C-alpha cells in the first residue's frame, strides 16, 4: 500500500504531544508545591519577622533602589573600559607565550611570569597593592585616581586568565590546519592571523563569556579602594538606615544582568558541544 499523506498529526506526534503535556504538568505541580512550602514554612520560623524587617524591607528597598541603580552605572563604566583592554592584553599575552622565534624568547618568559603571578594572587590583593601602591608614589591628579589603578588591577588579573583561555583555543585548532595553510605558502604569522586565530577565538567565545560575567561581579572589589560603586553605595545605605535590604537590592541588580548573560553563555556552550559532536 502506498504511503498516504494524512492531514492530521501522525500517531507518533499525538503520542509525543501527550508525553510533553504530562511532563509539563508534573514539573509545574512539583515546583508549585516547593514554592508554596517555602512561602508558608519560612515565615513560621521564630526569627522570620526580624529577618524580614532587616533584609526584605519594602520601604527601604524602594528608597535605596534608584540610588543603587545610579551607583551600578559606575560598575558598568569600569566594566566597559576594562573588558576591551583585557581582551587585547589577554590575546597579546597568549601570542607572546606561544612565540617561536628565539628573538622573542624574553617575551615568552615575560608572558609565562605574567600569567603565573596574576593567577597566583587573589584579585583583592592585586587591587589593594596596585590601587593603593601606585597612587602612593605621589602622582598628581588625575593620575592618582583609584579608578585608573583599580581598573588596571582588574585588567592585569583578568588578562592572565583570558590569555590562558586563548591559548587553549589556539591549541584546539588541529595541526592539519597549519599544515594546509603552510603548504599554500603562507608565513607563520599569516597562518596564525588568517587561519588559526579566527578559529581559536570562535572556539573560546563561551569560556570568555564566563570571564566577562565574573569580571562584572569583581568590579565591586574596587569599592575597597575608593570608588562608590553599587556595593559601597549599598553599604552607605545600610549604615544610614540600619538595614541590610540595600544589599539585597544590589544583589537583585547584579542578577538582572548576570542571569541572562549566564544563560546566554550556557546556550553558546551547549551549541558548541552539539556542533563538535
Amino acid at each position, binding site marked *: 500500500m502506498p504511503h498516504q499523506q494524512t492531514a492530521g498529526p501522525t500517531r507518533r506526534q499525538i503520542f509525543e504531544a501527550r508525553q510533553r503535556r504530562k511532563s509539563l504538568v508534573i514539573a509545574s505541580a512539583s515546583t508549585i508545591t516547593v514554592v508554596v512550602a517555602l512561602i508558608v514554612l519560612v515565615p513560621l520560623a521564630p526569627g522570620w519577622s526580624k529577618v524580614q524587617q532587616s533584609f526584605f524591607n519594602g520601604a527601604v528597598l524602594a528608597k535605596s533602589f534608584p540610588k543603587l541603580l545610579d551607583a551600578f552605572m559606575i560598575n558598568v563604566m569600569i566594566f566597559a573600559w576594562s573588558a576591551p583592554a583585557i581582551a587585547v592584553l589577554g590575546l597579546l599575552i597568549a601570542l607572546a607565550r606561544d612565540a617561536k622565534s628565539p628573538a622573542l624568547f624574553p617575551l615568552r618568559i615575560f608572558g609565562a611570569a605574567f600569567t603565573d603571578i596574576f593567577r597566583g594572587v587573589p584579585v583583592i590583593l592585586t587591587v589593594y597593592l596596585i590601587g593603593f601602591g601606585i597612587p602612593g608614589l605621589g602622582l598628581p591628579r588625575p593620575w592618582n585616581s583609584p579608578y585608573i589603578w583599580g581598573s588596571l588591577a582588574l585588567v592585569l588579573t583578568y588578562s592572565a586568565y583570558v590569555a590562558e583561555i586563548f591559548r587553549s583555543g589556539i591549541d584546539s585548532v588541529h595541526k592539519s590546519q597549519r599544515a594546509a*595553510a603552510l*603548504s599554500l605558502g603562507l608565513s607563520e604569522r599569516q597562518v596564525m592571523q588568517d587561519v588559526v586565530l579566527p578559529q581559536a577565538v570562535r572556539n573560546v567565545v563561551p569560556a570568555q563569556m564566563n570571564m566577562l560575567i565574573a569580571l562584572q561581579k569583581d568590579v565591586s572589589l574596587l569599592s575597597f579602594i575608593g570608588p562608590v560603586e553599587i556595593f559601597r553605595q549599598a553599604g552607605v545605605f545600610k549604615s544610614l538606615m540600619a538595614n541590610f535590604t540595600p544589599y539585597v537590592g544590589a544583589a537583585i541588580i547584579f542578577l538582572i544582568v548576570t542571569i541572562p548573560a549566564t544563560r546566554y553563555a550556557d546556550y553558546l556552550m551547549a551549541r558548541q558541544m552539539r556542533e563538535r559532536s
Partner: protein
Amino acid sequence: MAKIELRGVVKRFGENTVCDGIDLDVSEGEMVCLIGSSGAGKSTLLRCINLLEPIEDGAIFLDGQDISVPGLDPQAVRARIGMVFQSFNLFPHKSALENALLAPRRVRGQSRADILPEVEALFARFGLADRMHNYPDQLSGGQQQRVAIVRALAMRPEVMLFDEITSALDPQLVGEVLDVLLTLKSEGITMVMATHEMGFAREAADKVCFLKDGRIIEEGPAAKLFDHPQHAETQAFLARALK
C-alpha cells in the same frame, strides 16, 4: 633535468627512520604514484618535498635548485608546490571561495578583484560554480576535496602533491575526485600522489613507485609494475592490494 629530483632523502622521527635514502626523479608533466602499505612513508615523503618536514640527509631539487638546504625560506618553495590532503583540511571559518582566495591574496599580494575571475573559472571547471559561497561543512566530502584542489590550483603551482585524497571519501564520491586528477594530467601539470586506488594508479600513472619501510623497493611504468612486478615484496603487496 627532471622537475623534481630526490637524492638519498633520509627522514627520521627520533629513532624511527621513515624515509631511508630515497632517490626519485619526477619529470615535467609526469604523474608519479606512490603505493605501499600503511606506514611505508608515503605521506612523510610528500611532506618532505613540500618542506613541511625537514630532512636529515640527502637533497631535494626543484628545477635543479636544491630546496633542502637548511635555512632556505620555505615559503617561496611551497608557493610553487600545491598539496592536497586526505582529510581535505579546508578552513572551516571561510567559504569555499575565500579558502581559494586566501593564498593568492596573502602570498602573491594580488587584489581580490584581480584573481576573482580566474578562481571563479576554476570552481566552474570542476563543477563547483554553485557551491562557491558555501562553507566547508555545507559540502559533501567529494565537493570539499575538489574545493581543496581548487584552493591549491589557485596558486598556479608547478607541481601538485596528493596524499591519499580519496581515502576519506564514500566510494560513490571517489570517481568525481579522480576525474579532476585526469583533467589535471591532461593539462600536463606535474603530479606526485600517494594512493591506495590501484586501479587508478594503473590506468593514469606514468610511473609507479612501491615503498616499503621508507625505501623505494621497485619503480617503473604502471603497466610493467602491476603486471610484472620483479620483487617478491612488490608481488606480495600487489597480491594483497588487488585481491
